[in-house]
């Protein structure tokens, strides 16, 4: 008896996090294609009200692990609870978000269950009932497709903002069940403190919907204002290549790339960025890349949807003014 598709949703500040709707969208589609059910699991404390929201997003069944000990992520505790749930329900497919917490949970669980996991997937599809999991590798230079032949569940984590979120339908109903939580002897690491990043002005780089990044092609720190003015006009976060942060033009926290922040905006505008693998690794999840560079052979154009070959000193101010004008 096939046991369907299971997703592990997440909360942020007491509400469902955006990844939950993305998992619901792809999970529902896979379950429908298999003719099976979709089960959503949620961890937290005082989350009873979110069961209906997960139902509205498409779940047939919602399992709530609602316990004070689960109010924030603690790897050992979440792992123990999820391992028990998955062993009991034995889903064919198990999907989680590629988020700082659940990517850790997913990998540990895959080893406990002795099954296969593909992390950071940007596409999932079924072929003859088998899940084909696609992800960028080698910093986005290549695409890999993985399958899990024999072991079950077939596990994947999905890249944030790579999948269409499900649209809630209030008419949808689901069976909402509490999960018994027993953590005797499982918790080895202890959370002493949780430190939230101080809010900066402007959107945060890693979850910004629009990002403007500058590269070495700007020539020097005195030209960084071109990037900042465009970003301010767009309400965008500011990113940079490693060359720029290494040179100290902007703090390292702005670095987008393999050794920096991974961004997944709808719009990623690059100015004077050549498109080294190092950098592409951090922005290949952007839905639309725009390249402004005077070198027509720059690699960034291979990743861009729109491009302008020309001197940014003229292109960017004109672009910035035109955007202001369009927005009235």
């Amino acid at each position, binding site marked *: 008896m096939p046991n369907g598709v299971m997703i592990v949703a997440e909360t942020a500040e007491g509400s469902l996090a955006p990844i939950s709707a993305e998992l619901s969208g792809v999970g529902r589609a896979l379950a429908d294609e298999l003719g099976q059910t979709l089960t959503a699991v949620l961890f937290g404390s005082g989350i009873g009200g979110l069961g209906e929201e997960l139902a509205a997003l498409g779940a047939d069944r919602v399992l709530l692990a609602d316990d004070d000990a689960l109010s924030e992520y603690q*790897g050992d505790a979440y792992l123990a609870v999820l391992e028990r749930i998955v062993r009991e329900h034995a889903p064919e497919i198990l999907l989680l978000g590629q988020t700082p917490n659940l990517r850790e949970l997913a990998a*540990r669980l895959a080893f406990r269950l*002795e099954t296969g996991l593909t992390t950071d997937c940007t596409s999932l599809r079924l072929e003859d009932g088998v899940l084909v999991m696609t992800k960028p*590798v080698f*910093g986005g230079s290549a695409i890999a497709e993985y399958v899990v032949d024999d072991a079950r569940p077939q596990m994947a984590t999905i890249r944030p903002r790579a999948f269409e979120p499900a649209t809630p339908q209030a008419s949808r109903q689901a069976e909402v069940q509490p999960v018994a939580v027993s953590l005797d002897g499982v918790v080895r690491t202890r959370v002493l*403190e949780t430190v939230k990043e101080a809010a900066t002005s402007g959107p945060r780089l890693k979850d910004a919907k629009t990002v403007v990044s500058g590269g070495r092609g700007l020539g020097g720190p005195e030209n960084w204002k071109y990037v900042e003015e465009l970003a301010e006009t767009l309400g965008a976060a500011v990113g940079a290549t490693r060359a720029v942060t290494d040179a100290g033009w902007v703090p390292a926290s702005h670095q987008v790339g393999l050794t920096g922040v991974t961004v997944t905006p709808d719009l990623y505008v690059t100015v004077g960025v050549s498109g080294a693998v190092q950098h592409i690794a951090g922005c290949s999840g952007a839905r639309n890349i725009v390249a402004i560079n005077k070198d027509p052979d720059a690699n960034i154009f291979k990743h861009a949807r729109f491009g302008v070959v020309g001197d940014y000193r*003229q292109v960017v101010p004109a672009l910035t003014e035109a955007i202001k004008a*369009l927005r009235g």
Partner: protein
Amino acid sequence: MNIIVTIKQVPDPDIPPSHFKVDEATNKVVPPAGVAPVMNGYDGNALEAALKLKEENGGKVTVVTLGGSEARDTLKRAIAMGADAAVLIDDPDLRDGDSYTTALALARAIDKVGEYDLVLCGRQASDTDAGQVPLGVGELLGIPTVSPAIGIEATDGHLKVNRMIEDGHQVLDVPLPALVAVSSEIGEPRYPPLRGIMMAGRAQIPVWTAADLGLDPSAVGTGARKTRLRRLYVESREAQCELVEADSPAEAGAALAQKLREAKLI
């Protein structure tokens, strides 16, 4: 404090993308001529963290890698940086393994090195970007496992680990022995001093096979893998980019704004 650091040798992520090629018949990357592979970046961060902990607390740092004989270069670099010993796991059955068989071999090798307080790893490798092996090694060893760490401090049989979360970090108390996978925020790897480079040249690096680790070929070969790479390819990206052209760069900038509006991106 005795520390074991797992290290992977990877293709240099700074190679120009135009030099990056895949053999689709074998699902393998064609090594670019003249560009030497390097120590995975996050593994360099892990080694740096290990060397700092050793400097503060004493003990020994051992590095372990799984790879072909060419991976010796990366182990020698680790010794040059300050590692005390290195082990190469090399076995045809273990090559091209998945996260599962790789973690299994590393966990067995760590057990064979023995007497460790801490295992440090890079949070993920820049080739497959999977980030599974460190967590798998921790599970297989049955020790507390934390990833990704941006700070580590040793205190009397425990670690205080700063672990990255969505909007900040958690401070965790972690009893030893434990496995911690680190992110780049923990600190840039040092350059090997000349004395280290000379020592690395003389270093003896033992080679362990699957059999040395008590692993039967059936436990680590193709049949033991949980995940199968079905296809590896380079996406055709030519001609996808719409170049916005105009009489002057400024007009092109204005035309670009129009395009972005039409595409509903602004």
